[in-house]
């Protein structure tokens, strides 16, 4: 089974779109992982003598309002933004899989109640949910992570549930039951592994959205606590900055846009390779 998925990945990467976007994302992840070694300067080193300097050879991406190196901050920011969105989506997917699988497999009243609540959270503007939750949970990345996780929970729950429900009627599931298998075996050996592919692809695409949501929450001053940089926090570090030192705001914005575009392209390539397009529609 692992071979099956690895093959699909290989197929995805071998396409033009998949290759380019895969390479970019790989570089990004490497950059984020090795941020402290790759950054030319410490991300929090202030030098008020060189505030808001335009990009130059010493500071490739310029400096910000405290004279900090924007490139270093962006590299470290990638770390924050990526880990926030990946953790959040990870939590969301894990919860969504459990909830969705339970609802889809057992159905009934439990299903109906959970889905009503889930639908409510789905149609509620995610920015409002996030703001509300961050207010409750408190500042810092944890709040943002949980808020994003909950904002996307509905999507994964629904997707998993639809998957499980359609898989449930597959002949091989009945075949397994007729062999004498219990619920656990059916769920964990057949249903979940088969439902996983589209959920994972959806998770990947959602990671892109989560980066944007993190940025938007940053706009409201929520999320990474200074001096920790995140792309979102950098983009929203006072809109006046747009006129004084546009690179401080534009470059992280560009990074967000590029990352999301590449995540989407890569996701498309994976969808094509796994041929799960049809399953997407059902959700």
């Amino acid at each position, binding site marked *: 089974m692992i071979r099956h998925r690895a093959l699909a990945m290989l197929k995805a990467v071998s396409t033009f779109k998949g290759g380019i976007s895969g390479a970019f994302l790989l570089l990004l992840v490497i950059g984020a992982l090795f941020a402290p070694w790759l950054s030319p300067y410490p991300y929090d080193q202030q030098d008020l003598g060189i505030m808001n300097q335009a990009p130059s050879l010493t500071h490739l991406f310029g400096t910000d309002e405290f004279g900090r190196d924007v490139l270093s901050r962006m590299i470290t920011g990638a770390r924050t933004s990526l880990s926030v969105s990946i953790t959040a989506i990870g939590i969301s997917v894990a919860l969504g899989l459990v909830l969705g699988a339970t609802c889809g497999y057992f159905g009934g009243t439990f299903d109906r109640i959970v889905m009503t609540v889930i639908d409510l959270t789905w*149609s509620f*503007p995610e*920015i409002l949910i996030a703001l509300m939750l961050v207010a409750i949970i408190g500042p810092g990345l944890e709040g943002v992570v949980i808020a994003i996780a909950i904002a996307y929970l509905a999507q994964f729950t629904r997707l998993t549930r639809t998957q499980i429900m359609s898989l449930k009627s597959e002949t091989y599931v009945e075949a397994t039951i007729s062999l004498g298998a219990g619920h656990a075996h059916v769920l964990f050996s057949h249903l979940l592994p088969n439902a996983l592919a589209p959920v994972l692809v959806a998770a990947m695409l959602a990671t892109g959205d989560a980066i944007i949501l993190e940025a938007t929450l940053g*706009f409201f001053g929520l999320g990474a606590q200074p001096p920790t940089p995140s792309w979102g926090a950098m983009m929203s570090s006072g809109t006046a900055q747009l006129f004084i030192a546009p690179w401080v705001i534009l470059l992280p914005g560009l990074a967000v846009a590029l990352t999301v*575009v590449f995540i989407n392209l890569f996701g498309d390539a994976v969808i094509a390779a796994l041929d799960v*397009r049809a399953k997407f*529609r059902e959700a």
Partner: protein
Amino acid sequence: MIGFTLRRLVLLLPVFFVVSLVVFFIIHLVPGDPIDNLMRAGSTPEQRLQIAAKYGLDRSLVEQYVTWMGRLLTGDLGTSIIQGRPVSALIARNLPYSLELGIAALLFSTLTGIAAGVIAASYQGTRVDDSITGFILLGSTVPSFWLGLLLILVFAVWLGWVPVSGARGWSSLILPTIAAGLGGIALVARVTRIAMIETSRQDFVTLLHAKGLPPFIIQLRHVLRHAMVPVVTILSLRIGWVLGGAVTIEYVFARPGLGSLLIRALNQRDYPLVQGCLLMLAMAVIIGALIGDIVQAAMDPRQREARA
């Protein structure tokens, strides 16, 4: 059909109750209280207590809920603590702006999204498809607050075609509509495109071609109709977003709206106002989903039957 609608409405009652519980208590989970926002230098602790008593904040939460619910059943959402005006009046004042922008953005993203989806699906796998999908994708990757500022810079400052901000007349609605709607285009286009492609693979479409119908008629009159079913689902789920999702846009374009009203109320812990806004949003969302179901049933004769 009527039976179906009525049944769904009756089922809303318990949902309404649960929603009211959540809506009432959730704001109390947030630290801080509204009274401090009423106090300024010079006011005394006694005044604090007076204000608390005036709004019933000195009583237990359960008691407060019962009072609130009692009033709610008579249609009274209470009075804003900070603004001192009936919550319903405040919502009524902000709602038109949210509706104006929300509907404009929804129409913009839906129509453009469907058009883009149809074209992309018709040219599936070609460069046309790729460029449409790519362009739309690009538009949806930029956070809307940021997009709003850039749009202002380009179209209002450099080109001077439209006003920078405000909510006066349709010309001031153009940029916010684009900024708020661009993200939705990608979603609608994606769903439309996939649904179109899926539908055109079905036997009945082959048979329509076999009848000699011109392809564009088949696409628009038959395939699109089927593809609209999932699109309607998405749209019905966007009702909440139409009403309260454009907070950042409202902020950047200096527009009033429910989203901003709610955020401000949230920041000031204006309990009745937050509760009122949330309840209204939640009910709108639920009713939106219901309308979506009904529209879907109306569109699809099979569902109409199944649900009758």
